[in-house]
Structure formats: C-alpha cells, structure tokens
C-alpha cells in the first residue's frame, strides 16, 4: 500500500503544486477583498479542486504501460483501487485545510463572513459532499469506460455530484419546512456528509468488481 500511495502522490504532485500556488494567490485576494460569495467560491474550490486533481491523475498512469505493469507487482487489484480512494481523501483533506485557513483568516480580519457562524459547517459539508460524490461516481466510470475518457468522466462525475448534493439539500429544506435552526443546519450537514460517505463506501466494491474484470 505504501508504494501505491507514493505512486499516487508522484502522479498528483506536479499539478497539485500548480493548484496550490493558484489557491495561495487566490486566498490572498479573497482575504483582502471582503466578499462572502468569493470566500464561498474559494472554500468550495479548495475542497473540490484538490480532490478532483487527485482523481484526474489516475489517467496519467495509462499514458505509459505503468497501469498494466503495476498489476504484475505484488499488489492486489483491490489495493490499487483502495489506494486511489485514500489518495482522494488525502487531497480532500489538503483542500479542507486551504478552505479552513482562507475562511479563518477572513473571519479573523473581517469578522464572521456568514449570516450565522454555523453556516460555515454547511459550506464544508457541501464541499466535502460534492468531492466525495464526484469520486464515488468517477472511480467505477473510469474502469468501466476506459482510461482514455478520463476528462469527460471527470466532468460528468463533478456535475452529477453537484446535482446530487443540491438535490439532497433541497429535499432536506422541503422536509424541514419550518425555519432553519442550528440543529436543523447540523442535521442537514450531517445528512449530506452521511449520504456522500455512503456513496463512496458503495463505490469501492463496485469499482473493485469492475477493475477485476478489466484486461490489459
């Protein structure tokens, strides 16, 4: 597993460096300019961008024969899939750190950027959910449809993830009809997180099953 994680790290590293520099510069701008919408965009971009970048790097392995070669090394196919899932979670964590720092500094300098502070939880929950849903959709698609379609599958999974997260949010809003209290916001955030985690958990055995049938 250690080798697989290192392999994934090297695949993501160069694009992550570029994205980190971009996030840093954008973060400075977001902190200087007082704009709630820009801050929300920054937080979502961090959480979704880093993990999508990690997911997209999977296709790079198949430009060379490494994707096939890896199967001949002492690793199981299930472990290869697991390493991709872990990799996405690691980079999602990096994105969360960027989002936390950006929001924290903005809060520190300009006060709470949201209507009520608990809204921050909802933002993190939405960002994490979109990221997890996107991964849950992308991984099986990647093996099912072929490595050469990485780009289009990435777009499809991201759009689906946004759609699903918005649908869950809308559904909860309708179900909880009355005014949103702190506990209802926490419940909404928890439901979104739980649904996306469940989707990711279900996606793993599905991806393994598809990958086991793949021939190279």
């Amino acid at each position, binding site marked *: 597993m250690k080798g697989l*994680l290192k392999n994934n790290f090297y695949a993501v590293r160069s694009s992550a460096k570029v994205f980190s520099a971009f996030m840093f510069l954008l973060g400075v701008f977001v902190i200087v300019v007082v704009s709630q919408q820009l801050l929300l965009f920054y937080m979502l971009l961090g959480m979704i961008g880093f993990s999508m970048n990690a997911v997209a790097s999977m296709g790079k392995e198949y430009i*060379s024969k*490494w994707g096939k070669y890896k199967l*001949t090394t002492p690793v199981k196919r299930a472990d290869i899939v697991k390493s991709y899932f872990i990799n996405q979670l690691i980079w999602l964590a990096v994105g969360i750190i960027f989002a936390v720092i950006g929001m924290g500094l903005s809060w520190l300098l300009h006060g709470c950027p949201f209507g009520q502070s608990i809204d921050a939880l909802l933002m993190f929950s939405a960002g994490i959910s979109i990221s997890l849903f996107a991964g849950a959709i992308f991984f099986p698609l990647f093996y099912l449809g072929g490595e050469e379609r990485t780009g289009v599958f990435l777009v499809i999974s991201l759009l689906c993830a946004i759609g699903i997260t918005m649908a869950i949010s809308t559904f909860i809003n309708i179900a909880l009809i009355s005014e949103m209290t702190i506990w209802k916001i926490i419940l909404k955030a928890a439901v979104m997180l739980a649904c996306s985690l469940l989707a990711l958990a279900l996606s793993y055995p599905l991806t393994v099953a598809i990958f086991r049938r793949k021939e190279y």
Partner: protein
Amino acid sequence: MDNILELHQVCKTFPRTNFTLDHVSFSIPYGSIMGFVGENGAGKTTTIGCVLNTVSKDSGTIKIFGKELADTDTELKEKIGVVYDGDNFPAYWTAEQLSDVMQGLYANWDNDLFKKYLNDFRLLPNQKIKSYSRGMTMKLAVAAALSHHPQLLILDEATSGLDPIMRDDMLDVFLEFVQDENHSILLSSHITSDLEKIADYITFIHNGKLIMAASKNDLVYNFAVMRCKESQFLELDPGDILVYRKRDYQIDVLVSNGNEIQRKYRNAVIDHVSVDEIMLLLVKGERV
C-alpha cells in the same frame, strides 16, 4: 526436470478482434531461457498477459513455481520480474522516484542493487524518464525488474527498438541472470538473432497457435533447409517434410534432421537454417 513456468492448453478469445489463443502449451525449466517467437499480432503479448494475469484466460492452466497465479498471490508476484516493450513507467518520474515506489511495492527491493544497475547502465537517478532515450528507458526497466531479486524474468519485446550494442549489453545481463540455476527467462521477441544468442529453447507462435517448440541446439544443429527443384521435391518422403515454401526457381523444405536427410538424399542441397528462416518457413510455408 522441474519447470518454473508451465502452460497447459491455454485458450483466450477476443470476440471483438476475432483473435484466439488456441490451446497454447509450453514449459520453461529452471535455469533456462525460453525464446518466444512470432510475428506482430501472433499472440505473444496475450500469452504473457495470461501468464501475468493481466488478461484472464478462458481455459487451461498456467503454473508458476508450481502454482496458479491469482490476483491475491503477492508472494508469487515477488518472484517475477517484468519488462514490457516501450514506456514501462510514467514519464514524469525519475529513477530515484521509481525506486521509492518500488521499495513500497516489493518486500525484497534492493536499493543498492538498483543503484548499481543505474551506475552500470549510466543512468542518472535524478533525470526525468521523459528525457531518456528509448534504450535508456529499456535499461531502466531491466534494472527495475532485476532489483527485487526475481526468479523468473518475463520480457515482452524488451530488446526491440534497441541498437545492436545496447541489445548485446542487455543480453549479457540476461545471461548473467540465468547463471543461477533457480532463475529462468521468458523472452518474447521477433528479433530472432537475439534468441539465437541466448535462448536454450525456442517456441514459435503464429495466429494464436504454437507451431513449434524445440531446443535451440536442436534447431541449430539438426534443423536444416533443403533447396529442391520441383522434381526432387516430388521424390521426397512426405514424412521428412516439416513445411515447404515454393520460391521462384526452387522449393525450400524445412527438415528436422539435416544429417539424416543428407545421407538419404545424396544429391540434395542442404543448408543450415537460421531461426529467422525457420520462422519464415513455419509462418509462410505449407504443410504436406
């Protein structure tokens, strides 16, 4: 004699391309090099894919070290080194990063040995693979395949595209590898001169079927080609003819026992035959 690799009646069909690997059987004894020869698309890579489990066979058995290789058999995979034709590793890596990854994959990864190979092959550890020449990428792949102390080396067209000097260097490395009697190599290639230099056994594959398997000594010392006129050809005992090929003014006949044939047909012109010519005759020739 024990075999390090045994294939028995292995079949695989690709319905889309209509290609079938048709009941392929062969074995590689410990301490030997098996040359696996065939034209492009003959089924060499598919066979190797079945051996390495990157392609799932439809039927038949494949035993490596006496066991069927399963996806979960990581211990068995530790003993196998693989080199594919072309880019084995991502171009954005350096040799150092490759070593770093391999160390995490192979329990027996020997970093010192890898460094020694890099030094011997004059490869820079910090140079990106994308700036390597083709020969350098192949050397790196061979270094990586040998640096976890495998017992079985599987090389799929590993010498194709290399210049003769580089190929010779590689062949020396392979010969050194099989000095250990527990080591063996399956070397697929369509460069038959390489196999003539190092292989102990040569197996020919054509259109997914094995058409011949013999020891190299047998091929070199016993196999021969008769150059016949049509009238001479008609007088031949059909049992002596493996395959024949009509040329403009003569018919080339492949025989498996040149000396006996020379005694039997005293007027016949009999030449030694190269592996290249055997392959051509087997592929393009006709059977009686």
